[in-house]
């Protein structure tokens, strides 16, 4: 483990710097503020030089004398950030920085955090279970499964070309597992255990998983004309959940995300008329099946 020319940990070389000797700014998931100290003393704990400036920057100067117990979630996060930066770290480690915030605060803080990270331009590692956060805040996104990095790249690349089913699911895809066989015309056919048959423009054979992204799926009441390049799955509407101004609909094994307007027009309702989910073979990714990963 090294930062530039500084070695922090090297088992072979016998280097093991103590935690307090590593200039890291660490933001804990629960913020871990010192409950017995005021906001100002919390921020000053790592270093007194930039306390005033940091408190101004994070808009917490007016809270200088307040104890952490009396702060809101967003305020605590700002104090924790100011405190971590007061140490003048060379690296930032953020552990689920948005997880502890309510929905409303989250989106505001996400924007602020993005601006902050851009401004600081410190090497930063951010851990999150939310792909959207990672995509918004990070230059590069890495998918970590059971301690191993499955794929690192730009967020768009992880979605367009996931390395394995877990990464695809992380990026928001629904997985359909089954047995694949090439059709010979550039398409591969996948048959699931329930007898659903779909095609993908990716090559593949044997045990595979097809990844379908909800925004690539459209809904209709009737089956479209048969077309090998187009998939159509008919199924009951198992759930219909509003997400922002869109509706997330589960039709059989497939999840679709459609606008509220389309939903109204079609009359989509949970437990109502069965719908047909259509998606192109070209947007269906085919991935070799991996052992099922326990859901995080």
């Amino acid at each position, binding site marked *: 483990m090294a930062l530039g020319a500084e070695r922090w940990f090297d088992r072979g070389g016998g280097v093991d710097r*103590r*935690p*307090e000797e590593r200039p*890291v*700014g*660490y933001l*804990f*998931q*629960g*913020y*871990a*503020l*010192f*409950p*017995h100290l005021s906001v100002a003393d919390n921020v000053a*704990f*790592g*270093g007194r030089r930039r306390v005033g400036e940091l408190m101004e920057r994070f808009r917490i100067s007016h809270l200088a004398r307040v*104890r*952490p*117990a009396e702060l809101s979630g967003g305020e*605590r996060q700002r104090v924790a950030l100011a*405190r*971590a930066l*007061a*140490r003048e770290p060379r690296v930032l480690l953020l552990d689920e920085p948005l997880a*502890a915030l309510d929905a409303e605060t989250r989106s505001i803080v996400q924007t602020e955090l993005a601006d902050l990270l851009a401004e600081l331009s410190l090497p930063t590692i951010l851990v999150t279970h939310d792909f959207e956060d990672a995509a918004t805040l990070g230059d590069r996104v890495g998918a970590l499964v059971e301690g191993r990095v499955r794929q690192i790249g730009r967020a768009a690349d992880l979605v367009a070309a996931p390395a394995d089913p877990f990464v695809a699911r992380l990026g928001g895809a629904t997985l359909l597992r089954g047995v694949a066989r090439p059709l010979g015309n550039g398409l591969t056919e996948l048959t699931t255990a329930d007898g659903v048959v779909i095609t993908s423009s990716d090559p593949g054979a044997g045990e595979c998983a097809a990844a379908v992204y909800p925004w690539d799926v459209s809904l209709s009441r009737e089956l479209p004309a048969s077309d090998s390049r187009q998939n159509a799955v008919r199924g009951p509407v198992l759930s219909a959940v509003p997400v922002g101004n869109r509706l997330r609909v589960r039709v059989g094994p497939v999840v679709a995300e459609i606008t509220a307007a389309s939903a109204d027009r079609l009359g989509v309702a949970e437990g109502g008329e069965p719908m047909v989910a259509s998606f192109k073979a070209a947007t269906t990714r085919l991935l070799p099946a991996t052992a099922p990963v326990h859901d995080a």
Partner: protein
Amino acid sequence: MRRGFELLLAVAASVTIAFLVLPLVALFLRVSPAELLGQLGSAAAVEALLVSLKTSAIAHVVILLVGTPAAYFLAMRRFPGRDAAIALIELPLVLPPAVAGIGLLAAFGRRGLLGEELTVLGISLPFTQAAVILAIIFVASPFYVRQAIASFEALDPEVLEAARTLGASSRRVFARVALPMAWAGLSVGSALAWARGLGEFGATIMFAGSLQGVTQTLPLAIYAELDRDFTTALALGGFLVVISVALLLLVRLLPGWTSSTSISLFRFARSSSGSTSA
């Protein structure tokens, strides 16, 4: 039938309270406040008071200075034999004080384990004020250390780790973060240990004897006055009760004064509720 059970519970509670309160009530009924204060002026009483205060204070300082780092170490580190170590520390809690006294003699007496080494250094412990202090430390320290271990264990590890990431050494974390955060629990343990130390009788009388003005603490003075002057004994007893009640109030009120609850969302650290159980 339900009513009958409820009634039984109420009766049990009443009997318990009555039995525990009776001796105290009797004490103050036999002696009027005026007599109480009058008797306290006697030489025996004043000397006993001074011995008690001096020895318990010194003992307490030692308990805090040595016990706090010890408790921190035991609370924070995991090592083989840790459970045994903690059990050994708790042993004096269940040991009969007379046994403690004999044990101290066996260890520090002239013919004891360390007897020869001490004699060479010119130190003779039995029947000295130092012996009183040792006896108090022996019986009272588990009260403090046990509570201190529980208080340190209840601290949110994330907050301590945060201090390390902010550049604090282990020593700074202990002094600036762990100690202040555990303060309420430590204070409770301290009050209980001091109360126990003040009331120590068995170990003291066996190891230090009951020499007026030297090793005769308040409890020992009460015992001595029993045959001589019952009223003085009552007065001394009443006085000790007052001190004990004051300490108890202190223990009950303290958690309300301090507010060392962790605000970390995922590990809720309990602030001390004044109990000695870990």
